[in-house]
């Protein structure tokens, strides 16, 4: 791996719910996660909804402040905590770390035309010198994301565009500032299945031309496998990364019981193969509450292989067969 562009060290995020009336409760959405993403690299982050993957993405973008631990960005030949960055350095980081959000329908301001969504960042970072140049660049961006002729889209309001078109505009806006790192948070999950591959390929093409790195967040292993082929994948469960390594290796031979369960849920087109597949027998289908997670390994209440140590000790991520796994079995 090349030098990481951005890394998370023991980063945690605790949300408090309630308060004012009744007792305050705390949710540990992200629990001591280590993560590194190198230049032009893809890391697919997979987990069920509510496992903290979106929160982790927002921590990487400094949209949320970590409760403990840090997210550092490689700038001026050293790693600096993104929350300690000031002035010019912070601006550079902001420009270089972008987000493609989940819901295309709420990503654009409903009261503003498409052109007014595209030009402010170009002017803000002086990528364009004036409005006319910004408009020209916006047109080029729309061409890149496959919306042509661009002039047709400039004066439209978001409510008059389809989900796919909106997502393309969101992508155009994110890449307009030529970022080095993009968090794609469920970027295709709200789109029609027929559109997904197109958008995924668009993101991959952008990676080729802009040399961007991706943190690709999804709940769908099949999509993660497609997007992060020959790259890395990380499996997240209740705020922890339980397994991380080369995509093909993990898909072919999952080690963590949770990864095995996740893989078992991916439909297999061949019924013969599907019948032969061994399903790990979960002890419970209920996902434990984040407010009071079980002690020890958080998966122990459901894990078919759970032993007594699993209820006592939190497993560390350790290297097994060329990947990282957090499980007492290994």
């Amino acid at each position: 791996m090349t030098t990481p562009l951005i890394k998370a060290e023991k980063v945690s995020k605790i949300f408090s719910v309630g308060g004012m009336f009744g007792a305050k409760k705390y949710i540990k959405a992200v629990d001591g996660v280590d993560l590194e993403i190198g230049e032009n690299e893809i890391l697919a982050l997979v987990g069920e909804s509510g496992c903290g993957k979106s929160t982790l993405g927002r921590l990487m973008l400094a949209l949320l402040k970590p409760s403990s631990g840090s997210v550092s960005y490689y700038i001026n030949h050293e790693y600096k905590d993104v929350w300690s960055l000031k002035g010019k350095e912070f601006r550079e980081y902001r420009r270089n770390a972008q987000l493609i959000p989940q819901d295309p329908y709420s990503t654009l301001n409903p009261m503003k035309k498409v052109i007014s969504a595209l030009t402010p960042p170009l002017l803000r970072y002086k990528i364009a010198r004036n409005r006319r140049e910004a408009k020209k660049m916006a047109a080029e961006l729309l061409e890149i994301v496959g919306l042509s002729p661009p002039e047709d889209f400039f004066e439209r309001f978001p409510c008059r565009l389809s989900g796919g078109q909106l997502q393309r505009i969101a992508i155009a806006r994110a890449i307009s500032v030529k970022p080095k790192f993009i968090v794609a948070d469920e970027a295709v999950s709200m789109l029609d299945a027929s559109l997904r591959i197109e958008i995924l390929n668009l993101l991959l093409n952008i990676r080729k031309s802009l040399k961007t790195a991706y943190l690709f967040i999804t709940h769908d292993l099949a999509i993660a496998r497609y997007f992060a082929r020959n790259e890395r994948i990380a499996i997240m469960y209740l705020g922890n990364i339980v397994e991380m390594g080369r995509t093909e290796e993990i898909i072919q031979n999952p080690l963590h019981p949770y990864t095995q369960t996740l893989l078992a849920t991916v439909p297999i087109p061949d019924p013969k193969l599907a019948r032969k597949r061994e399903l790990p027998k979960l002890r419970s289908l209920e996902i434990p509450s984040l407010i009071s997670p079980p002690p020890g390994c958080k998966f122990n209440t459901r894990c078919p292989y759970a032993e007594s140590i699993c209820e006592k000790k939190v497993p560390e991520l350790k290297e097994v067969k060329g990947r990282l796994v957090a499980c007492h079995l290994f």
Partner: protein
Amino acid sequence: MTMKWIIKRTATAILTVYIVITITFFLIRLLPGSFIEMMIYYYMTQYGMSEIEAEEMVYSLYGIAPKKPVWEQYIDYICGLLRGDWGKCYITGIPVLEALFYGLPWTVFLLSISMTISFALGVGLGILMAYRRGGILDNASSVFASISRATPNFILGLLLLYFLTIYYPIFPSRGSYDISIKPGFTLEFISSVLYHSFLPIMAYVITSVGGWMLAMRGSAIRVLGEDYVIAAEARGLKSGRIARTYVGRNAILPLFASFAISLGYMFGGSVFIETYFAYNGIGHIIGLAMSWRDYPLIQGGFLLITLAVVLSNFIADLLYGKLDPRVRRGGMYS
């Protein structure tokens, strides 16, 4: 309903009254010295008092004790209010509270009836409009509601007074009952009271029903779009039952929030309406105080109206909290 919520709500109510008291206190303190001197001069020339007498008169009227520091006066003022010492009327010398209590029952009578009619009518018509939205009935009613909302109550009062007591003398123009009838629990007296209160109540109801209609219409349309109502319709429940149990209750609840505003508006109008019809309520008394510039009485009236509005709003909120499980569990802002 949690205890905490009640405590918080009570604290807000008390804070409201406290702020109003503070406003009235400092408004007087903020009057420039020249005004006080002018008043002293006025008493010296008009009533032939000596300077000291006139000074004492003015200071006691405005509750000013020039020798004490301001904060002590402030505490005295609040303690006086709590003890029921609201100052004396400027002209008649009657204690303010006594003068106001004389009119209070009549105003409470008028406003409670008007408010009930207006609320019930507005809610009923509002639901009807929501069900028939887009139809002729809805359009006609919402034009009427807009006109009702837009008409100042003092102008409607004036029109009713002129056209129904002077131009066509159908209703009595003065008083809250026929003074030739002895007050008592007799049919004659009660019918006289109702007869005299008809026009004032009309004036209140017509100018406030529109607001309730529009609010209820909007609220009911929102509720009608909710999944549970659609589900109830899909289950084949009778529309009358849906209207009562699902829409009615859930749509009325948000209206409690505008209770204080509506009641405050009606109290404001009472100054005109009671004056027009020479009705013996506090609005009439405050109206007279206005024309005499009787500041202690005006201020006392304002305090009493505020207390009434805060108290009714508090009750409305408690009711709301009892009816709405969301408030019972959580907070106002959660």
